[in-house]
């Protein structure tokens, strides 16, 4: 099993290394290498899933690790942790990744950096698969950063566009803000538990090694990483911009897999979340689900609608992790991966058609703009049908996968609210249900605007064609995976996932915090859960249908005039259309503030610190000038004075030396007289 997992993990890495180095010179620019590698990984992951299904044991677990860093006190191992959760998510990742690889053969055809695109996809697959299989938080963090850099490279794939380059940078930096929290969380864990291993942490938390406020803080800080990666409020701003990347990337990374890594992390760490930490998680998720949905309604860029929808759906999953609806949250992660990847690939198919049509007609415009679409149903039948299936799944309509999982989340949230004494917690299901109406509404607004009605741009419409098979077949595959029974086998009841393999294999882990305290942290009685589930299901079906109906009233039957309506709620519309001005707010405060602060420090460095250095040099230099002056005029002056005096004396004395013998004789005679007189006295 471990060997199998290693192959699944490392094959894409090998494809990356070969492709980045010599991909350009390979036949077909090496796409077959990347596709082949992930294809084999996909098949191997199916084998792994098959084994798990044969085993059919909720407590299935295979672990294996090798020592890595050993400093004596600190030991870090590298290893894999394969339980049902990991196996299922590995299968989901490799499935979506494989389909996206295949789809990209058609979508990226003719791109000058074709080989590099596949190389990056391979690197991403490697990192993502590693992220969900590692047995320790340190390894997860490493892969977490690597998927981040892949995301950066792929968002900025069309790097000559400034908007793309900006978006990539923004994505990475905003994620780093979350990772800052993640890192501190990790440090709390290692400094108390002494290990990053998931099993060891579980035991240590259960024994109370890490407890109380610090445990809550660790939980919330680790969650901060998830807030960044899963684009939760207030760090969601990078995801809509990330749509600058090629559409297959949006499908794979920014819808199905990487952004779900935050949810995965919360699932993995669910055992160590205290009640307070869970509340934070639940409210951040719940608020995000509603907040993002309200932005999605007014966007005109087909991918941006989907991006906000992704944020909103991730909010659902995060909320589920917070209210203890662990199974439902993880279930939604998997179903959402399928239908949201499908939605993006479908929108990619539309954009691809728009792009080619624009090239042919010579019209310059934004191929993502829904205001240029309409009526594509007849021209793109496969894209249309599959798109509707994905939308029904996302809206939570029975017989589609999204119904099962979303309904389970809403039921779980309601159950949580019902089990709590504080009625304020009814806010959480309220967030969820309101978001559900909006979700159905914006999805059908999107479908009607794109596929139904009259073409809004006839000349573009003329050249719209269905995409090649290499792109539509992945769509069909994902549509198939969005049907409900895939997840409920052997039961075929469309009402809920109970009795299916999925809910059998995935169980909420025993909370280590509960073990530590000796009593359950969060207890939801069975009858409450049941009642909540039935009510939740009814409400959510009604709400979803209402949303769809509203969309038809607005956009298809046009019973309500959209223009007039938006005029009447102008301030609200403007808020939603401008994404609540979050980008502007961050730009004005954080970004400008940082740049100004940098400039100030640089000025300080140049003028104060270096000023002192140069200043002391100036002082020394001037001191030595002065010293030199003193030396020259005073010290040396004295010396010269002595010398001059000697010289002058010498000069004056020299006059005696006339060289005439008679003078000397005169002197000698006078001297002799003088001496004689002296001796006589």
């Amino acid at each position, binding site marked *: 099993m471990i060997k199998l997992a290693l192959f699944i993990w490392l094959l894409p890495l090998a494809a990356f290394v070969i492709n980045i180095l010599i991909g350009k010179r390979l036949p077909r620019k090496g796409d077959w290498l990347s596709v082949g590698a992930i294809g084999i990984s996909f098949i191997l992951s199916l084998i792994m899933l098959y084994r798990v299904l044969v085993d059919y044991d909720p407590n299935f677990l295979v672990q294996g690790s090798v020592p890595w860093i050993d400093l004596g006190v600190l030991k870090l191992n590298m290893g894999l942790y394969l339980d049902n959760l990991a196996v299922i998510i590995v299968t989901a990742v490799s499935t979506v990744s494989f389909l996206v690889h295949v789809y990209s053969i058609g979508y990226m055809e003719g791109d000058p950096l074709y080989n590099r695109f596949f190389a990056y996809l391979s690197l991403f697959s490697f990192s993502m698969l590693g992220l969900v299989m590692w047995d320790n938080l340190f390894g997860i963090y490493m*892969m977490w950063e690597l998927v981040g850099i892949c995301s950066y490279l792929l968002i900025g794939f069309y790097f000559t566009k400034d908007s793309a380059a900006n978006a990539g940078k923004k994505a990475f930096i905003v994620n780093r803000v979350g990772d800052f929290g993640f890192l501190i969380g990790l440090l709390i864990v*290692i*400094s108390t538990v002494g290990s990053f291993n998931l099993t060891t942490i579980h035991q240590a938390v259960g024994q109370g090694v890490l407890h109380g406020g610090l445990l809550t803080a660790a939980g919330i800080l680790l969650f901060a990483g998830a807030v960044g990666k899963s684009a939760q409020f207030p760090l969601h701003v990078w995801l809509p911009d990330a749509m600058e990347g090629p559409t297959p990337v949006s499908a794979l990374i920014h819808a199905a897999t990487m952004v779900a890594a935050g949810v995965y992390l919360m699932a993995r760490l669910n055992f160590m979340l205290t009640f307070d930490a869970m509340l934070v998680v639940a409210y951040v998720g719940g608020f995000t689900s509603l907040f993002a949905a309200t932005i999605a309604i007014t966007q005109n860029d087909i991918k941006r609608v989907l991006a906000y929808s992704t944020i909103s759906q991730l909010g659902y999953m995060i909320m589920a992790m917070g209210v203890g609806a662990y199974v439902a949250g993880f279930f939604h992660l998997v179903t959402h991966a399928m239908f949201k990847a499908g939605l993006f690939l479908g929108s990619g198919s539309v954009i691809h058609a728009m792009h080619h049509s624009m090239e042919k007609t010579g019209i310059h415009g934004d191929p993502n703009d829904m205001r240029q679409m309409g009526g594509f149903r007849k021209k793109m039948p496969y894209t249309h049908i599959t798109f509707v299936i994905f939308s029904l799944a996302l809206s939570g309509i029975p017989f589609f996968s999204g119904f099962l999982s979303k309904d389970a989340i809403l039921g779980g949230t309601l159950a949580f609210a019902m089990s709590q004494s504080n009625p304020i917690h009814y806010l959480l299901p309220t967030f969820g249900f309101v978001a559900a109406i909006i979700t159905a509404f914006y999805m059908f607004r999107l479908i009607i605007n794109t596929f139904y009605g009259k073409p809004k741009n006839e000349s573009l419409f003329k050249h719209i064609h269905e995409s090649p098979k290499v792109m539509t077949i992945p769509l069909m595959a994902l549509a198939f995976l969005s049907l409900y029974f895939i997840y409920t086998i052997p039961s075929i009841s469309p009402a809920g996932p109970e009795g299916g393999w999925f809910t059998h294999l995935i169980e909420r882990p025993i909370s280590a915090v509960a073990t530590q305290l000796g009593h359950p942290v969060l207890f939801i009685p069975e009858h409450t859960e049941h009642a909540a589930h039935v009510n939740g299901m009814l409400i959510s079906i009604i709400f979803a249908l209402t949303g769809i109906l509203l969309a038809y009233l607005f956009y298809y039957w046009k019973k309500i005039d959209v223009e007039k309506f938006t005029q009447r709620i102008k301030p609200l519309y403007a808020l939603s259309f401008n994404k609540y001005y979050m980008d502007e707010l961050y730009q004005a405060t954080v970004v400008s503030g940082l740049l100004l602060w*940098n400039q100030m420090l640089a000025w300080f*460095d140049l003028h104060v610190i270096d000023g002192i250095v140069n200043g002391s040099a100036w002082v020394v230099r001037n001191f030595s000038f002065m010293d030199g002056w003193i030396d020259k005029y005073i010290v040396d002056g004295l010396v010269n004075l002595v010398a001059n005096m000697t010289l002058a004396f010498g000069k004056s004395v020299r006059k005696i030396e006339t060289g005439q013998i008679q003078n000397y004789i005169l002197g000698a005679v006078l001297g002799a007289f003088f001496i004689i007189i002296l001796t006589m006295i």
Partner: protein
Amino acid sequence: MGLISLATFFPVLGALIILFIPKEKLSTIKIIALVFSLGSLVVTTFLWTQYQYGMIGINDESQFQFVEHLAWIPAFHIEYFVGVDGLSFPMVWLTSLLGFIAVVASWNIPKAQKGYFALFLLLDTAMIGVFVSLDFFLFYVFWEVMLLPMYFLIGIWGGPRREYAAIKFFLYTLLGSVLMLLVMLALYFNVQDPVTGGHTFNMLHMMQQSNHNSWLSRFDVRFWLYLALFIGFAIKVPIFPFHTWLPDAHVEAPTAISVILAGILLKMGTYGILRISYPIFPDIAKYTSYALAVLGVINILYGAFVAMAQSDLKKLVAYSSVSHMGFVLLGMSVFTSAGINGAVFQMFSHGIITAMLFLIVGVIYDRAHHREINGFGGLAVSMPVYAGVASLAFFAALGLPGMTGFIAEALVFIGAFSVYRVLTIIAAFGIIVTASYVLWTVQRVFLGKLNPKYESIGDINGRELFTLVPLGLLTIFFGIYPLPILNMIKVSLNYLITLIP
């Protein structure tokens, strides 16, 4: 003569030979420089294969490897005493590696090649000498010998403000040397050789606290001596606020000299603290550790913020060095296994990564003849291979997992957090700022629309790739498999921290 001496003096032998070759024979001069710097690398690599991983070193002569211990000037108890342990060997190897790479990077130096290569080889010898010396006097000699070629290499072959930069570098470092000299003499007169009873320059004798006389055991004396020594080393690191020589020296120095400056010379500061200050004054090291941690955090953040404000690419890389050296300081200030191992690993890792960054700046400067970040743009279009290699180096600088910088920083954080929680959290903020300035730089240089001026600019050539690729491979190799280094350093460093009370 042992292998350590061979590795040390091999380059200077080349310098001597170069002196006898007429300056017109350019290629002969270059090939001699290449062969002799490579020779040193071959010897140190061979030593690595012979290295005994379990041996401690630090303060016990029998635990050192490849020791050569001879009398030199017996009248003043000066000895030729060299050897390596886990603390010094990675630095020795890195020095010989970067020495060789710098020769290749200097291939097209425009003027007075004979003098340049002769001085460079002298510098190479002095640097290796600093890392292998176990006699304080010998250490000091190598330390000073290093200064002189550096002064000329910056002052003659540098950029427009080379003279200012060279003098600033020289005087600043000299100030540190003077302080070091004073401390060395104070130690010489107050440490007793346990065998002969006389004075000694032997560092290992100085580390034995029982050899200190009563004057040297006084707290105030020890404190001031430690401080003087510390300032001497701090200038070299450089620790805030002694860092302003660095951007000037880096910007004016030719590419290969910047590589050596950032890759090796900065590490001598922290190496000196670990090799000399800590074991000789462990009590004061402990006493001042909080201040060192604070200085480390200041270096990390201040360097990163100021780097972000730079418009000159080389200055930006220079300030990033200030920031990255902060991790070394933070790691060594906490005396935990993870912290100090992370610090030394960071010394090695930063040596490689910053060398790559300076080489990368050199590549573009040779073609565009300027370094204004905003004057480029879109270079990934016209120089794809260069952009790829540069991105790798920049990602390494922002601490991407899979490369050495990540391991080093992670270990430092792990080691520091259990001691100084708040400081570590503040320092961790640096990962955001670092990502910001690195990615912003990558964007302004490589991404966006291609600046039409550089449409036909040539991509990186084979010689330049030859300097960069080995370093890139090393950061990845040791980033995934750090054991060869960590196993080497941990024995010595884990012992070193036990000396701290």
